[in-house]
C-alpha cells in the first residue's frame, strides 16, 4: 500500500477512534461546554472535525495519484 493511502486511512479512522472507541470515556454530563452536556459537545466536535480529516486524506491520496501519473512513460 502506498504511503499516502496508508496515512489517508489513518485520517479516515479519526471518527472511529473519537466517536466509537472513546465513547465510554466521554459519556458524562460535566463539564458543560458551550452550553452542551460534555458527551453531546464531544460528539458535535468530532462530527464537525471529520470533514477536516477527510479533506487532508483527500490531499494525501491526490498526491499519490499525481506521483502515479509522473511515473507513466
Amino acid at each position, binding site marked *: 500500500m502506498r504511503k499516502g493511502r496508508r496515512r*489517508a*486511512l489513518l485520517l*479516515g*479512522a*479519526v*471518527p*472511529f477512534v473519537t*466517536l*466509537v*472507541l472513546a*465513547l*465510554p470515556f466521554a*459519556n*458524562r*454530563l460535566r463539564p*458543560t461546554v*458551550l*452550553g*452542551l*452536556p460534555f*458527551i*453531546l459537545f464531544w*460528539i*458535535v466536535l*468530532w*462530527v*464537525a472535525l*471529520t*470533514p477536516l*480529516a*477527510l*479533506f487532508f*486524506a*483527500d490531499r494525501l*491520496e491526490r498526491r499519490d495519484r499525481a506521483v502515479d501519473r509522473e511515473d507513466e512513460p
Partner: protein
Amino acid sequence: MTPALAIIFGVVVLAAGVGIWAGRRLPMNLENWTVGGRRFGLLLLWFLMAGEVYTTFTFLGASGWAYSRGAPTYYVMIYGTLAYAISFFLLPEIWRRGKRFGLHTQPDFFVQTFGSRALGVFVALVGVASLLPYLQLQLAGLGLIVEVASAGAVGAGVAIPAAFVLTCAFVFTSGLRGSAWVAIIKDVLMIAAVGIVGIGVPAIHFGGLGPMFKTLAARAPQHLVFPGSTASMGVAWVMSTVLLTGAGFYMWPHMFASAYSARSDSVIRRNAIIMPFYQLPILLVLGVGLTAFLVLPGLANGDMAFLTLVQKTYPAWFLGFVGAAGAVTAMVPASVLVLTASTLIAKNIYRAGFRPGASEQSVLRLSRAMVVVVMAAALVFALVFPNALVNLLLLGYDGVSQFFPAVVLSLVWKRTTKAGAFAGMAAGIGVAAVLVFGKRDPLWGLNAGFIALGVNAAVTVAVSLMSKRRSAHA
C-alpha cells in the same frame, strides 16, 4: 382553504412540477432513468444524498427518541459521520466499477464482482424486502405530518394517495434526476424548518439551547447521558449500533444507485468530505425533542413531540410550512426507494431470473410499470397496517448491512468467493432474524445486527477459504 393548507398544497405541487420538469428533453433509457446518466456534479449529488438521508425519521423519529429515550438518540449524529468516512474510501471504487461495466443497481455489482446471476437475484430479493417497509414508513410519516399540519382538514387517507400520484408522476417521467431536483427544494425547506424550530423552540421556552440543557441537567440528568431513559441502550449498545448502521448506510440499494449517478470519483470523494456537516442540524432536532420532554411531559406517542411542540409554540400558518417541508421530506426518499425497488424487480429479478434476453428498453418499460405496483403495495400497507411493518424496517437495516462484508472483502481480498459471499450473507441475515424476532435484541448489551455482522464476516472468510477461487472477473 386555510393558509396552512394552501402552503402545503402549493409546495407539494410545485415540488412535483420541478421533478417532472427536470426530465424534459432527456431521452429516457435505463441509464438516464436509474442513475441520471452518470452526470451529477458535486452540488446535485450532495442534494440527492442529503435528500435521501434526511427522511421523516429524522424529523419525527429522532425528536421522538430524544423525547422518550434521551441520550441514545445521539447515535444518529455519529453513524452518518462514520458512514461518510467509510464512503470516502469505498464509494469511489464502487463508482469506478459501475462506470467501467455500465452497472445500474447493487445486484448488478454483485453479478459483476462474483460472476453469479443467482447471487444477484438473492441480493435483489433481500433489497426489495428491505426497501418496502422503508417506503411504507415514508408514506405513513407523510400522512401523519399532513394530518396534523392541516389541523385535521386533510386526513392521512387523502394525503397519502395524493402524494402517491405526484411522486409516481415525477419518478415515471424523470427517474433519478427528478428526485435530485425535488431534493433541492426539500433540503432547503427542511433546513429552514429545522433551523427556525430548533433555535426558536428552546429560545422561546427557556431563552436558548444552553439554558434548556441546564434546566434538563438539573431536572433529569440521567436523560442526557447513555443509556438515557432506557434500560438497554448503554454505551456498548451505542458503539455496536453506530458500527452496524455506519456499515449498512451505503449498503442500501438506493445508495448504490446514487453513487453511480456521480460524474466522477472525485465528485464522490468531495461529497464525502462535506456530508458530515449535514449531520450537525440534527443537534437542533434533538434540542426540540428534549425541550418537549420538559414542556410537554406525558405524550402517548413520542413521535408527535416535534409537531405538537410546533403547534403549541407557533401560529397555524407556520405549522403549515413545517407540514409542507415534512411532506416533501417524505416524497424525496419515497421516490428514490420506489425507483430502486422497481428497477431491482424488473432488471435483477424478472430479467435475470426469467427473461435473460429482454432488451434494455423493455426492462425500462417494466420498471416504470412496477413504480405504480410497488407504490400501491406500500400504500395499502401504510393505510391498512400503519404499524405492522415497524419490525420489518428494523430487520431491513439489519438485512442490507449484511451486504457490507461481501462488498468490502471483494474489493480488498482477491480470495473472496461467491460461495463465501452467499454463505456469509445468509448466515448474517439468519442470525439477525432469529435475534430480532426472538426478542433477543439487544443481546449482551450489543445490537443484534452487529453480532450478525460479525458472524457474517467470519463465515464469508471461512467459506471463501474452503471454496474454489473465482475466475478473474474484476
